[in-house]
């Protein structure tokens, strides 16, 4: 299985055609997806048409872009013009958007070949992909286990080597946690770094799109392609997009890495996980970094804070799903209000309903100050914690998850599922960039290392992650149980 950047080089050098690469990706998906169930919709015609265009451009002597010929899977939360986009929900089961998300347009403008839309927890609410209205996706490392969520399908597709690149979204950990479970690289950029236009909204002040890839180099390239100001998104920031690949480094001399006391206390309870992370920090020091202890005293309030803010915003964002203009409608003779109520009752799954109820309550008269406003104030305190920490270090290294992938059905209690976001929520609330990079195995299951940096310092986290990746090559050390690439020998690099 080759990476995205290797594919691009091969296509530009005319060693391989984009068309054959697209066909191979589609064949790989067909070989494994009946078991993996990572995809909701495949787009073979679009893929072949795009691949053809890439090959024609190359033949003309043009450069089709940074992702020329690279097969890409897109989380079904990104609107794709003319292609069914469900957001993992029955309420949008047959929705065909008349426009594409900016992220999708930018990928295709740089030669990416989109092969399909991936499965996800409904409306991005979940940490296991079990909340998909359609079916759960499987973890390629153990199909009885979850791939994580909400970007489970994207993580799984890359983890199973169907495609080298996918895009997901992260609101409280929905890229980083599945990346950790599936042994891939996943980045949540700084809030405002990537346009949210055309990204079906869950929690507007937290949602961010990001790459999920087989290696750090690809993540850097994809981030460069999708990042940047978009006039269609008022919250997208007009800050220049660097050539992120330039930030990749092989050693960490002079880099100060913060280790979070509160997080280390938390992970200490699990011997195997604690050992894995200790080894990771040791490797970072071996590469030349200096580790310093830092504190995030308000991190423990992250869960409650997040589970007030995100549901509040989503309760408002999801009001538009009412059966009037698009999507599911249940109208059996009553008035329009009955239609709203029945449509939404039938179209939304339990987790979505829970969060709408919670969020509506948090905003409601008499409770708004006590819940929503208070949570937004604690958010300010958490941002302050990171500002304090980054005064002493360049990046923070910490666990991405508290455990490896769990079995399907293991976390039936919703709050136990919410706890999966413990390490990832604070970065989301602070709006700072963070990624997960493969960091080893507990038993047979992969675990990721999280690296975070101040706002707009994605280069730093990519640099550190690249050095760690090159020194450990964890993702290539073992084979997933479901592996779509046929050549096993070449993967033992």
């Amino acid at each position: 299985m080759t990476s995205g950047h290797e594919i691009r080089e091969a296509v530009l050098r005319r060693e391989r055609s984009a068309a054959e690469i697209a066909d191979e990706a589609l064949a790989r998906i067909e070989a494994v997806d009946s078991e993996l169930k990572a995809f909701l919709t495949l787009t073979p015609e679009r893929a072949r048409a795009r691949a053809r265009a890439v090959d024609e451009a190359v033949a003309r002597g043009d450069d089709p872009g940074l992702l020329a010929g690279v097969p890409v899977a897109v989380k079904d939360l990104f609107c794709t013009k003319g292609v069914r986009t469900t957001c993992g929900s029955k309420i949008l089961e047959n929705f065909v958007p008349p426009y594409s998300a900016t992220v999708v347009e930018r990928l295709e403008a740089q030669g990416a070949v989109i092969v399909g839309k991936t499965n996800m927890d409904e409306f991005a609410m979940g940490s296991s992909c079990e909340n998909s209205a359609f079916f759960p996706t499987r973890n390629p490392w153990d199909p009885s286990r979850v791939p994580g969520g909400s970007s489970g399908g994207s993580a799984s597709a890359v983890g199973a080597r169907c495609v080298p690149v996918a895009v997901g979204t992260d609101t409280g950990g929905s890229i980083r946690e599945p990346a950790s479970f599936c042994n891939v690289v996943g980045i949540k950029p700084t809030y405002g770094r990537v346009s949210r236009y055309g990204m079906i909204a869950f929690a507007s002040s937290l949602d961010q799109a990001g790459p999920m890839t087989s290696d750090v180099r690809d993540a850097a390239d994809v981030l460069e392609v999708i990042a940047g100001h978009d006039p269609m998104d008022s919250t997208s920031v007009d800050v220049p997009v660097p050539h992120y690949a330039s930030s990749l480094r092989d050693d960490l001399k002079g880099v100060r890495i913060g280790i979070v006391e509160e997080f280390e206390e938390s992970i200490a309870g699990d011997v195997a996980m604690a050992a894995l992370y200790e080894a990771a920090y040791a490797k970072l020091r071996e590469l030349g970094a200096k580790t310093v202890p830092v504190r995030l005293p308000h991190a423990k309030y992250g869960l409650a804070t997040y589970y007030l803010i995100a549901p509040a915003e989503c309760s408002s964002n999801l009001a538009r799903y009412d059966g009037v203009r698009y999507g599911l409608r249940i109208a059996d003779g009553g008035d329009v209000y009955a239609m709203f109520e029945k449509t939404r009752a039938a179209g939304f799954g339990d987790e979505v309903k829970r969060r709408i109820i919670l969020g509506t309550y948090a905003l409601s008269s008499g409770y708004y100050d006590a819940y929503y406003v208070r949570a937004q104030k604690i958010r300010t305190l958490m941002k302050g914690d990171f500002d304090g920490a980054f005064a002493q270090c360049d990046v923070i290294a910490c666990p991405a998850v508290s455990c490896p992938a769990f079995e399907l059905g293991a976390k039936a209690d919703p709050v136990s599922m919410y706890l999966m976001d413990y390490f990832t929520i604070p970065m989301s609330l602070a709006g700072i960039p963070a990624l997960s990079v493969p960091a080893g195995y507990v038993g047979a299951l992969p675990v990721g290392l999280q690296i975070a940096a101040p706002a707009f310092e994605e280069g730093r986290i990519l640099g550190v992650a690249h050095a760690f990746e090159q020194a450990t090559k964890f993702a290539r050390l073992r084979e997933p149980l479901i592996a779509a690439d046929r050549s096993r020998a070449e993967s033992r690099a």
Partner: protein
Amino acid sequence: MAEIPIDIAHVSKLARLALTDREAAAFSAQLGKLFDYIKELQALDVEHVHPTAQVIPLRNVFRDDVITASLDQAAALANAPDKDGAYFKTPRILE
């Protein structure tokens, strides 16, 4: 399991979400533990803290008053569950 303070019947009406009694009871039970965490927030002193409405310090983001292409009527209505000629159609409104 902690009692949650939400009047689910009232809130589900505001949210136009018809919940069954079973669902309401289940949600109530499920969200109890979360409210234990939420209660911890109440203990913090945040009197002099500003709420973060936006993590990014942007201001004054505008678009110029220019006309851009609209959808054509067919595209606008393409996903409509029910339509009547040029219009979206819904059941009647009983206030």
